[in-house]
């Protein structure tokens, strides 16, 4: 119980410190260069998503080939 409590205390101090710290790597990446990296991220997410779908479709068709 005490370890749990101290863990949460530690966690809360980390969170409190994080709020005071300089902009995180995420903020500096997203907000820099006119926020173009947001577009890069969005396009990457879409390509990754379609890629995962294609991968699953590929597996599905491989199964069909094995069955036939």
């Amino acid at each position, binding site marked *: 119980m005490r370890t749990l409590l101290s863990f949460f205390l530690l966690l809360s101090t980390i969170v409190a410190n994080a709020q005071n710290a300089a902009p995180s790597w*995420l903020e500096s990446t*997203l*907000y820099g*260069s*006119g*926020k*173009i990296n*947001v*577009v890069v*991220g*969005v*396009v990457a*997410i*879409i390509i990754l*998503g*379609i890629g995962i*779908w294609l991968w699953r*479709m590929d597996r*599905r*068709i491989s*199964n*069909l080939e094995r*069955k*036939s």
Partner: protein
Amino acid sequence: MKNWWKFLGIGLLLLASIAALRIPLAPALVHVSPDRIAPGTTDITITGYNTAFTSGALVKLVNEEQQVCATSVSVLDASHLTARFEVPAGMKANLTDVSVDDLIYTGALFTEGLGAGITSAVCPETYPAPASFTFPNRSILYESIRNLHFHVPMWFTMIVLMGISVFQSIKVLGNNSLDNDLAAEMAARIGLVFCVLGLITGALWARATWGAFWTNDVKLNGAAVTGLIYVAYLVLRGSVQDAHKRARLAAIYNIFAFMLLVLFLFVVPRLNAIDSLHPGNGGNSGFNDLDMDNSLRSIFYPAVLGWILVGCWMYDLRVRAARLANNLDR
């Protein structure tokens, strides 16, 4: 040539995506320092974005009817310049606009004068720059305005696929066809793929513009609930053993699900009582001149059509694979 629409989809997507990434943002003034000026000789540094400042730049302060022209301008590079002003003592304390040629930064700085106003100086005329094809340059959004062509088509595609799904479901109620039921299920599954992509891309965009991955925006929560409703549709299908019973039950549920989709994505966000961070919501109608620029529209609509066609292609593949699997199982 029965596959023309697949070529059309990829072609539109290719052109729209290249245009969405390559068309430059309109020039704009993004930073003025200092943000408070007092009467006397003052140097003001102005930062532009996509601008082409030249040594002949005409810089002025505009405070309601009062105008002050810069006495000298030194241009550091295409996007930085320093202008020197003799700020008169009589200037009204007010938010003041700064303009460089035809670019205006509204409310750029505060003038600390206590005067009753000055007679406006007459600055040399500025001529508008020749019009070119650019995307609007809005503060907070900046380059991320390009996401309009990637994030929003995800939702359009999802709505079209859910529409196909409910159309197939209505057919199931009429003819009890298991093939229509299969089509309804697969359309909803592909629709969910686009829903997830829309949510994740939206979260990233929200982090960069609204400051958090998730906000309590009505449209966000509405979209999330819509996604969950369709997940529940798939769960419901999985819980019924008998195929014909499943088809009818799922069809009826699907009709309610689509009605809720329309409610959560189109009706609730537009109620006057609720404010939304999304443009075109919270009492406004969408797609008016304030929300969308014509240059954005001319790329946005091809992108939407391209994504819808690609979504339909994915749905087509999925249905054909599922039919094959059914035939092999038999």
